[in-house]
């Protein structure tokens, strides 16, 4: 079953949450931000170039123009490759683990897989972020030495910060799978 719903992030921008239920034991949630709009790119580029041209007028040195072009290109590449995250995916597989993939605008993907044996729980938590107080979904990792402690907190959907309603959506279905997992591990 596929579900695609539209939410908004903490800054008011719109997000799209896609839920894919492959099987009762495997679900995928994919939060995708709007892609980089051509308008903003052109705006930034034009402003930089205009500034460069102004400098060029001041001191007749064509180095500035070439440097400006170079800088804008490099900046755009760097932005697309390292900064702009288009899509964040949370794949949760019963008794295998949780996998978080964030795919950049340039197509580069960085994946982080957490085994289910390490996962203690998935919770929604509050944090002070910049000048806001936001909710965020996070995965609590077991402390290997003592089972009730928490060794680490891994935030999910870190770049696109969805609002509470969206998080609750994800949280519920994660909890279903985790509950099923705990029941199964308890019974044998």
């Amino acid at each position: 079953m596929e579900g695609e719903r539209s939410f908004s992030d903490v800054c008011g921008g719109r997000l799209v949450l896609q839920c894919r239920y492959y099987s009762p034991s495997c679900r995928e949630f994919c939060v995708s931000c709007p892609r980089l709009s051509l308008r903003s790119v052109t705006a930034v580029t034009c402003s930089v170039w205009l500034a460069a041209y102004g400098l060029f007028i001041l001191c007749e040195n064509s180095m500035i123009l070439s440097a400006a072009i170079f800088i804008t290109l490099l900046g755009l590449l760097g932005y697309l490759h390292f900064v702009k995250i288009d899509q964040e995916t949370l794949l949760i597989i019963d008794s295998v683990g949780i996998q978080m993939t964030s795919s950049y605008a340039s197509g580069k993907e960085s994946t982080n897989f957490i085994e289910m044996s390490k996962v203690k729980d998935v919770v929604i938590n509050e944090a002070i972020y910049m000048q806001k107080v936001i909710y965020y979904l996070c995965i609590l990792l077991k402390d290997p030495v003592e089972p009730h402690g928490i060794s680490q907190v891994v935030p999910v959907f870190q770049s696109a910060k969805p609002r509470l309603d969206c998080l609750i959506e994800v949280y519920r279905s994660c909890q279903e799978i985790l509950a099923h997992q705990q029941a199964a591990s308890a019974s044998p």
Partner: protein
Amino acid sequence: MVLKAFFPTCCASADSGLLVGRWVPEQNSAVVLAVLHFPFMPIHVKELLAQVQQASQVGVAVLGTWCHGWQEPNESLGPFLEGLGAIFPHEPWLQLCRERGGILWSCKVTRLQAPAVPDTPREDQVMLIFYDQRKVLLSQLHPPAVLPDHQAGDATASASGLAAVFDTVARSEVLFRSDCFDEGPVRLSHWQSEGVEASILVELAKWASGPVCLLLAGLLSLISAASTCRVFRMWPLSFLGSKLSTCEQLRCRLGHLTLVFSPQKAESPTQLMRKANTLVSVLLDVALGLALLSWLHGKNRIGQLADALIPVADHVAEELQHLLQWLMGVPAGLKMNRALDQVLGRFFLYHIHLWISYIHLMSPFIEHILWHVGLSACLGLTVALSLLSDIIALLTFHIYCFYVYGARLYCLKIYGLSSLWRLFRGKKWNVLRQRVDSCSYDLDQLFIGTLLFTILLFLLPTTALYYLVFTLLRLLVVAVQGLLHLLVDLINSLPLYSLGLRLCRPYRLAAGVKFCVLEHETGRPLRLLMQINPLPYSCVLHTYRLPSCGCHPKHSWGSLCRKLFFGELIYPWRQRGDKQD
């Protein structure tokens, strides 16, 4: 709980047969290692498994049956496969099947011990996870898990989850030795290691490396023994050795070589990696050095360099002279005390004069010195670079002297002024309580204090200016040396081998795994593809960078600025107070 069946991709197209693999009860997953084709003698199968088991402490067993779609599906096959379950009793018994289409997979799990519940809901919960046997076999998980002790057969119980799978595959390598072309009693299909000839060469290299290592290690031990003998312990030599960066570099290289050629073999993969990295960096270093050497000794470049060097030194000295002349005038319209200005200026000018004569004294020998220095490049580029930095330090010794004089003078002034300023305000520094107390001075104390304060205050700008100028010069030199040291450290500590490995064989260094869901239709088991998640370059650098051996200034920027302001000496000669702490 879901049953996970790890299935090698290379067996997906194999003929029907038995699934040979290991059953991991902890997270109830079946790791299929190979497919054993029909026809076979059960007795042969059993002894093969026995061999494998005692060779590689892994509980290898027949997990179930595998039937591939393009034999005609006859009804007799079903019960026959059931019967096999009786011959090779295993719990649970998998029946993996791939239909004609090639994409329709089905898997059936039966538990003989539970006839009462023929199909409990967890029977149909099967997950097929495909993995690339070769990559999993060769890859090395990061961070490395606890080393499984090789006595117990089920040592992998300690290794959790996927580490267990990796470990199983890695340790059942003997199973993959058997080639599918040789006519054994049983035919297996699994990953085949290709390129046998290359492996022969590797064997030869391994066989040869032992004695070579022994020989070199002996030599190195001799050298190190020589370097640590008493002669070098005596005062001037040891002092120089600690100050000259060349000696540092040589010492460091010696350590590297001893590490590389140490006869005992590395037990853990990290140590192996470390050895490889060191070897590669040494080789690269020497190669660069030789290139430099060839370039230098071609077309009498040394001579040109030597001829160029003396004028440069002269020029530097002259520039300094001009600078001093400027300072002795009214530099930038600053109000300086003329008398003190003249004194300082003459003093420094005399120094420069000494320096120039010194340079001219040794000008005839420069070329030979340079020639010998150039030879040192065959020990590696880093040695040459550190020698260069030492030479720079020697050639700019006068700047260093100026800096020291200026700093001392300025320091004295600053401390005097600060204490006199306290007296001016009628306070004094209480040493016991570490704070400023108010205290009542006598009249004459006050008078003399204020007199000195006034004089020092009016003389401060002059000394401060001299100090500033020479500090800037000194900082310039230090920066150049720092750049050289940075370069040397880069060559020393870059883990080139690991980086190359990451570049060409990404799966060798695994940060973990990632799954992607293959297309899935209802009623069929879920199929996942397990891929190796390579280690990011930053982690590679962080994990494998070699310990750098350089003599850097250890203090931070803030403390550096503080020291500069208070006129304390900075790198490399420290003050006594710094030595203590």
